[in-house]
């Protein structure tokens, strides 16, 4: 058996011939153990290892030695639930992640909410819902906050102290706007045909501003405000439960 394997090794050109001299005296059982542990598709306990290994090997000692050998390496021999397996060293777990970006289109609802925030800011969730005529789901605001294009500005000085939302600089850069005032107004929207020209004369489009200074009717955000709290429906009783 061994001679067959040796012959195979001879025509395998991918293995360098010389070995590190300092490990020349490494006991063969360590090689066997590391091969078994490496190839196993699940952690193995000591008894199972012993069954596979030649007789007379002190498995416990060999495992201990192997563990010590691999301790400083990028891969460690670890014991999980009394079974042994190789695992990436804990301090290198960052290597085991890959970051990637994926392009996602905003949902229709998100774009609608974003548009209203842009034109009507500072605006509360209840006001957004009044304009849209539908409840805004928490998910929609979550997504918009994730884009970084909107931000909670403060709290409106009304009962319930609802959050006010506004747009960010990232919003301007996303839509290639120099300033929020560059958003087209009523006449321009009419000019492009986006707005019906027969709208009642009382119809108006606000002149948007993303001035960061709070309005008179706005309070600053509370210290304890976190996004989690900000978006909880309870914070805005008039918003109602997300439909």
């Amino acid at each position, binding site marked *: 058996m061994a001679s067959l394997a040796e012959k*195979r090794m001879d025509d395998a050109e991918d293995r360098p011939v010389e070995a590190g001299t300092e490990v020349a005296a490494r006991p063969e059982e360590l090689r066997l153990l590391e091969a078994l542990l490496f190839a196993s598709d699940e952690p193995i306990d000591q008894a199972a290892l012993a069954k596979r290994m030649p007789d007379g090997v002190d498995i416990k000692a060999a495992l201990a030695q192997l563990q010590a050998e691999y301790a400083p390496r990028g891969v460690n021999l670890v014991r999980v639930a009394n079974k042994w397996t190789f695992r990436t060293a804990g301090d290198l777990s960052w290597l085991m992640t890959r970051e990637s970006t*994926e392009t*996602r289109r905003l949902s229709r609802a998100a774009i609608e909410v974003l*548009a209203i925030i842009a034109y009507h800011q500072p605006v509360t969730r209840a006001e957004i819902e009044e304009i*849209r005529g539908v409840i805004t789901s928490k998910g929609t605001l979550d997504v918009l906050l994730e884009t970084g294009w909107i931000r909670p500005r403060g709290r409106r000085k009304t009962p319930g102290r609802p959050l006010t939302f506004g747009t960010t600089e990232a919003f301007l850069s996303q839509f290639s706007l120099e300033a929020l005032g560059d958003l087209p107004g009523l006449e321009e929207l009419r000019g492009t045909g986006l707005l019906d020209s027969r709208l009642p004369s009382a119809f108006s489009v606000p002149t948007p501003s993303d001035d960061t200074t709070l309005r008179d009717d706005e309070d600053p955000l509370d210290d304890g405000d976190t996004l989690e709290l900000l978006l909880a429906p309870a914070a805005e009783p008039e918003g109602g439960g997300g439909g």
Partner: protein
Amino acid sequence: MTAEILSFETGRPAEVHDGEPSLVVDVEGYEGPLDLLLTLARQQKVDLAKISILALADQYLIFIEAARKIRLELAADYLVMAAWLAFLKSRLLLPEPATPDGPSAEEMATALANRLRRLEAIREAANRLMNRPQLRRDIFPRGNPEQIAEIRHPRFTATLFDLLTAYAAQRQQRVLANVHLVKRTVWSLSEARASLERLIGIAEEWSCLDDYLLSYVVDPSQKATVFASSFAAALELVREGEMELNQKEAFAPLYFRKRPPQASGAMPAPGLSVE
């Protein structure tokens, strides 16, 4: 002779079933005539480059003869090869014609020898390939690979056009919805008339229109439109002789009653009589 032919059975490299009886001309076991020829050639135990094609042709023909004697079904390939070898043999034995057209017998023999060499070479290569350490037979990859976690960062896209379209569409939709609501709060003339007709059905005596209207119309914001429509409808009903209206002075409350069947002017109204 048969024994000699069959002796190379044992020399076959692979896939001959060990348990088979030894006195069988086993064409089935060969991968075609070239394989058979190669096996026969090995019997000559010489370098294929120096093989006697003449001797090989003889052996092949004898084998085929033996197979036919015991009525083995032979694939056409084997018979074609036999015919060709018989032809080659006769060419090799006869003196070459003075003006040969096409390849000479020697060239044909060499070409055959080369084909055999090529087949043998690829078989040797195949053997060496299969004897290499093979994945999951001799050597193994990591059995329990660790997953590389993918952290996805979403990049959201939206265009200014999307944004403006969404905004304009929403605002417009709401405005139209408001206009619709306003329409519903306006009392049309026919609505007013229908209401008044219901009212005068009750009012045999002079009644104050304002009181009726106020109790009828709940929403104060509708007061103006209700009064306007009702007044117009009331005039219409008076003109048709259905009711009588009475008002003491300008801006005073309006009184009305159902017009009595024959009481045209019989009962003096408290104030200005409209007719």
